[in-house]
């Protein structure tokens, strides 16, 4: 009896962990996009040299690298059809960060979109546990 409970808890944990990893992925991906935008706004020289010496831009690429690594670890245990759409959470963080950092406007359309994306990801998270 208790064995069955632990077993089902273990399975649900195994299913939830990849979603959590992709969640971290999306936060890193959004931070990467903000850094790249900052870098693009402060390009000292054009061309490859300018890119290589642009710290925020390079930082953005590094974060993308780490985020891809996390995605691989998530895909190792999780289903692609479940995890890939969760990446859409990036839109939510980017909208929030560009409001806070670049003072981009927020309007009802964006808010509605964010609510729908978050709900969709929540549904996928539930569906993963079944």
């Amino acid at each position, binding site marked *: 009896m208790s064995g069955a409970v632990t077993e089902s808890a273990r399975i649900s944990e195994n299913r939830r962990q990849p979603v959590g990893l992709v969640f971290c992925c999306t936060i890193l991906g959004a931070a990467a996009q903000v850094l790249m935008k900052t870098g693009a706004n402060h390009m000292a020289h054009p061309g490859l040299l300018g890119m290589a010496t642009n710290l925020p831009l390079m930082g953005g690429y590094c974060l993308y690298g780490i985020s891809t690594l996390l995605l691989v670890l998530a895909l190792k245990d999780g289903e692609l*059809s479940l995890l890939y759409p969760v990446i859409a959470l990036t839109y939510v963080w980017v909208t929030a960060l560009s409001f806070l950092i670049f003072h981009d406007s927020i309007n009802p359309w964006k808010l509605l979109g*964010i609510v729908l994306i978050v709900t969709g990801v929540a549904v996928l998270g539930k569906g993963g546990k079944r």
Partner: protein
Amino acid sequence: MKTPVSHMLLVLFASFIGSFGAVFLKSGAEQVKKGWIYLFISEKAPFFNWRLACGVALFLLSSYFFVLGIRPPGELSVLYPMVSLGYIWTLLWSRIFFKEPLTRMKFFGLFLILVGVFFVGLGSN
């Protein structure tokens, strides 16, 4: 609508190769199950995890076409939904290549996300 068709095609192409990037990443990740070291090597020739390398390369290529596509005069309200078509391709490939079950919950969650991305794009113009 002032988004040129060429920009739409660029973004569609980006979403298409991005979804294949995800497929390669997933098949490369299967090898990593045996241990961390398989992130970089593989048991068979050519002895490095070329599937992961392919996945990363396709992602980079996809982001290049994506950036070309969303330049002005491309409108995000038109182009963002096309990006999220990549999720549909990926659902298809997951079924075909990895025999993953497509549940009603997955379709419903994906539908909400697609509509959500559409509205974020609409608000970003």
